[in-house]
């Protein structure tokens, strides 16, 4: 039994935002209590005064690199970083080695996560075998083994006919396809956003159109097939506009963005900093503003950090040769909290973006809410905590982040997964290893 007392319980899924106490028992949320905390309690008591108590955060775009690339990250280190970042669940992509296109790999991930993980791991399986974009994977078997959605992320499904078929086939089963929307031919081998900064540095550019054309295609096929679609890592203004249009047209299309796209622009590339190299690339200021607008007006459903760990030497080279991607699990929460400073959204919306939204999009039962009977996944957030993201704090195996050295405001004070404390920075509370 666990009692979290005195915190501000923010749970948009059940319409609650008030100070009170949360009781967890047998891995579930038992009840919410208002008024005074119970004088006596059999079990652990955690004081959350001055802090927020929210449904466990869910990052729906993480690369755990396990199996196959364990030197970059593995399920243990990745979920540890997640827990430290306040996440009780992560959704991992299929571009492992071997690719998660067979139930054996899916089961391996589920098993290892159960045994060693510090957070829930929900695997996403491939849309096409080997991510080759030629043949559909066995969706039903994969779903049965535990896959919660399908994506070829890392790559787009280039063949429009195949994409259509996949969307159409999985529709009756209610599965959603998560799309890495990129026209890779139009991207033309570029390494940075096609704009003034890339021109100045002489780096070949990736036009915004490469993402926009692909998002438009995906949405129109979703319209054609009435399938369920989710657009990953939106980085452009037109991308947000297209999502808004799809929403207005009543299509079941959801979308996510990552903190880097509303925090940084391509100006971060100065000096050929490879820690600013990612796909989709950091765009211009106008795109950044459009992402913020999309978050503010509800167009964007989720914030997912696209955690992409890479070892030092594939980033320690000339820009064109550097690998794409940055880690994000430990910085996603504070960067998202900075949205509050804009004054236009409240904590409830943040919780939606980081928890309730992902749970809804992927139909994760018992997640994203603190209603009685929900899983005991709780994140205690200290929104005022000031800290510096130093290299020593990085729990991921890789340290490729442009935010190293940044002064942050807000962090997870405790992360409770299934009733177990997985991370704690509160006096008197210790985490289970």
């Amino acid at each position: 039994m666990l009692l979290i007392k005195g915190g501000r319980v923010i749970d948009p899924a059940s319409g609650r935002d008030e100070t009170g106490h949360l009781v967890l028992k047998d891995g579930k949320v038992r009840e919410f209590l208002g008024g005074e905390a119970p004088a006596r309690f059999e079990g652990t008591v955690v004081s959350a005064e001055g802090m927020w108590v929210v449904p466990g955060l869910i990052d729906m775009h993480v690369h755990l690199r396990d199996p196959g690339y364990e030197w970059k990250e593995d399920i243990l280190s990745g979920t540890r970083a997640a827990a430290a970042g306040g996440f009780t669940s992560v959704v991992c992509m299929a571009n492992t080695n071997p690719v998660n296109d067979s139930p054996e790999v899916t089961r391996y991930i589920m098993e290892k996560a159960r045994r060693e993980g510090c957070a829930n791991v929900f695997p996403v399986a491939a849309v096409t075998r080997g991510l080759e974009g030629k043949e559909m994977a066995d969706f039903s078997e994969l779903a049965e083994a535990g896959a919660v959605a399908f994506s070829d992320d890392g790559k787009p499904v280039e063949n429009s006919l195949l994409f259509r078929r996949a969307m159409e086939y999985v529709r009756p089963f209610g599965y959603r396809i998560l799309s890495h929307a990129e026209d890779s031919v139009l991207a033309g081998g570029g390494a940075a956003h096609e704009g003034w900064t890339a021109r100045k540095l002489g780096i070949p550019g990736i036009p915004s159109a490469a993402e926009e054309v692909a998002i438009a295609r995906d949405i129109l096929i979703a319209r054609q097939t009435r399938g369920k679609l989710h657009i990953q890592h939106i980085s452009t203004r037109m991308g947000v506009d297209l999502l808004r249009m799809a929403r207005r047209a009543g299509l079941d299309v959801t979308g996510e963005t990552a903190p880097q796209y509303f925090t940084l622009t391509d100006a971060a590339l100065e000096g050929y900093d490879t820690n600013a190299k990612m796909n989709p690339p950091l765009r211009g200021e106008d795109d950044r503003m459009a992402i913020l607008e999309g978050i503010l007006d509800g167009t964007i459903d989720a914030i997912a950090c696209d955690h992409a760990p890479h070892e030092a030497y594939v980033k320690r080279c000339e820009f064109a040769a550097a690998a794409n991607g940055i880690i994000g699990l430990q910085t996603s929460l504070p960067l998202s909290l900075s949205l509050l400073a804009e004054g236009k959204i409240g904590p409830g919306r943040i919780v939606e973006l980081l928890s309730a939204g992902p749970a809804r999009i992927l139909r994760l039962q018992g997640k994203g809410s603190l209603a009685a009977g929900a899983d005991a996944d709780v994140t205690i957030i200290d929104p005022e905590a000031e800290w510096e993201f130093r290299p020593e704090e990085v729990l991921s195996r890789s340290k490729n982040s442009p935010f190293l050295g940044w002064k942050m405001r807000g962090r997870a004070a405790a992360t409770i997964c299934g009733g177990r404390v997985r991370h704690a920075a509160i006096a008197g509370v210790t985490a289970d290893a």
Partner: protein
Amino acid sequence: MEWHRRHVLGLSDFHPEEMEFVIDTARSMEEVLTRDIKKVPALRGKTVVNLFFEASTRTRTSFEMAGKRLSADVVNFSSGTSSVTKGETLLDTARNIEAMKPNILVVRHSASGAALFLSRHVSCSIVNAGDGANEHPSQGLLDLYTILKVKGKVAGLKIAIVGDILHSRVVRSDLHSLGRMGAKLWLCGPATLVPREMERTGAVVTSDIREAVRGADVIIMLRIQLERQKTSYFPSLREYSQRFGLNRDVFSLAKDDAVIMHPGPINRGVELSDELADCERSLVLRQVESGVAVRMALLYLLAGGSHVAH
């Protein structure tokens, strides 16, 4: 002024005085090239390594000559014949060479920012001999020097640069050397090869070669690479040379004393007609001459001087 640079990575942060200082030094170097014994002992005992990851016989030979005229030991390393093809990273290759204690590395690489990257990881001086589509500082300086020799000044001149602006590091260095010295630059080429953002540099951007050349004092023609046609930047070389090639007819629109330049090698009949390439107003060979002198100046300034004393 005092020379404090340890590296020459690009002209983007060169003050006009620094560029003039290099040109002045190049003038003295050029005098050495007129003697019978074209050698001075200034860099005796120093080692210059030409680290070329991209093929280039001309630039490499020019740097090699420059080093040898100064009595330096010059060693050539070309990637085709070496460890890079075995998968060694740029950094590892450079560090291996650095362990042999050269004084100066002259680096050419296909990735923009490669020279800057190396300068952060090795301790010897780096001269950028061309990095991707970023800069080619010695070319920018030798173009400036050549124009000064012939026209006496650069300020106020109309200089047209015609060709594949998008992929050209020569243009970008020229924008710094010529533009900052007061020339009015016109950039001309197919719309697919001339990014609109270039207008932000103060240059005029056009796809009309007649407008670019009209009244120009200097016309710099750039080499068009065959691969660009294969990746659909323009329909064919024939079309390209009709629209963007310099021939007598188009050249007649320039000033009476206009000159023609080209960083080389020339595609005769494509961007530059045969007769114009060899006419008296073509400065191509003088550019080559200036090139050795400018490169001697750069090697000399990096090998001796205040930064070394520290």
